[in-house]
């Protein structure tokens, strides 16, 4: 139950802005940590400290200059930073869920299908995936009237909850959460805290960014202070 799910070694990320005079920005250097099954690590620090950059690096959305990101996938640790593109897609399909701050809505696709899609990619039937998606959206207080509509017209808070449902529905063993409660009211924040607690109880390893102290205190096992962990400079 307390296997290492994520192990980060000597992670370094530098951005080079070629069209702005070749400015380089070292955002992360020598970041190291482990997250075990059932644990939640919270990334803490001021805006610009590299929290989202770190989270995106764990999803292989950003490519690293140094370091390894070991993720437990199909029972063994695999270095996602060095994995082939097809392997990364497989890990994202089966193992890692990522809830971004903003929903990237596809035109014309109903909210229900946006949420059901990751389950379908795992081989669930369309009907089964939609049924489970509907139940989770209801729990997140999205009116059944809305679920057949494309979320591009939804309010910020509604889109955020669609995004959360999409990330939590497959029950990924590794969950990355980038301010999932930023635009939610107290009732919906409580639902999200409940979802995170359930994921942990099911053995998921969670890494999250939460500006809301109430959420942070409720779910965190460990806090990583990003000012100490990371470095920021421009040259």
């Amino acid at each position, binding site marked *: 139950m307390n296997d290492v799910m994520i192990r980060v070694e000597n992670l370094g990320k530098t951005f*080079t802005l*070629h*069209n702005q005079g070749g400015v380089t920005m070292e955002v992360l250097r020598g970041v190291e940590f482990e997250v075990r099954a059932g644990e939640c690590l919270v990334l803490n620090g001021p805006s610009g400290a590299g929290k989202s950059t770190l989270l*995106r690096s764990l999803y292989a959305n*950003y*490519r690293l200059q140094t370091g390894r990101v070991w993720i437990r996938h199909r029972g063994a640790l695999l270095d996602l930073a060095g994995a082939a*593109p*097809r392997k990364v897609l497989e890990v994202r399909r089966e193992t890692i869920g990522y809830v971004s701050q903003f929903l990237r809505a596809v*035109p*014309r696709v109903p909210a229900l299908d946006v949420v059901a899609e990751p389950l379908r990619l795992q081989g669930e039937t369309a009907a089964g995936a939609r049924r489970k998606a509907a139940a989770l959206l209801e729990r997140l207080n999205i009116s059944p009237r809305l679920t057949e509509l494309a979320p591009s017209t939804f309010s910020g808070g509604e889109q955020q909850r669609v995004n959360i449902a999409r990330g939590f529905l497959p029950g990924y063993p590794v969950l990355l959460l980038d301010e999932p409660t930023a635009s939610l009211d107290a009732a919906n924040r409580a639902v999200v805290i409940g979802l995170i607690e359930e994921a942990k109880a099911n053995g998921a390893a969670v890494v999250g960014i939460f500006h809301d102290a109430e959420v942070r205190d409720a779910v965190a096992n460990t806090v990583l202070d990003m000012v100490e962990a990371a470095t920021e400079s421009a040259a």
Partner: protein
Amino acid sequence: MTNETEQPLLRAVGVSHWYGGTLGCRDVNFELHPGEVLGIVGESGSGKSTLLACLSARLQPTAGQVLYRTRYQGTVDIYGLSEAERRLLMRTDWGIVHQNPRDGLRLAVSAGGNVGERLMAVGARHYGRIRETANAWLERVEIDAGRIDDRPDTFSGGMQQRLQIARNLVTQPRLVFMDEPTGGLDVSVQARLLDLLRGLVADLGLAAVVVTHDLAVTRLLAHRLMVMRRGEVVESGLTDQVLDDPQHPYTQLLVSSVLQP
């Protein structure tokens, strides 16, 4: 035990093409697996259309090989095949969606005929079943069944493009090449077409190579991306990596030049 998806379907090895002394594309290498969609982006003149023509058996490369894993005969160099074998492969295994639907449709033949003709080319003979299948495909690409006997030159651009897609997919190809499939269409029509393509590619498990200059199209359709400039691939990776964390100066310029509505 090897899984069907473990072996690449298409492999480009050092593919290069010169038009006389002018470079079309140089030393392009990649592998495409079943179910994968590869996007090729770059500005006009970057060599992406030349590369697509080389990959899809329409333009023999000056150097390099295009290898394709056939259903029954193992992996072949497509330019090592006879003309007849290559034509058969293109008819049975491949689809090509042109930017201008008029290049991929027969305008003097009815919509149903455009779809049915492809079925007959692979041996279908039963008229009732051909019409039934054509009807089902028109419905699938959201063309009203009442238009089956109309000629495509009476269709709007978006409908023509959807008809071209039906004509290509009706024979259940394994690999589809698309050249700017949403180019020249209104934005609202583009969205509908993209959504349709996205669903079809996922449901049918198609492999596809999509050439486009529209980065938003690649975000929605492509798993992986290659960025071309002056005939060469300057950057490649997962689509979200290339778009969210571009490394090459040219890719950074491309990504930062897109207007956010």
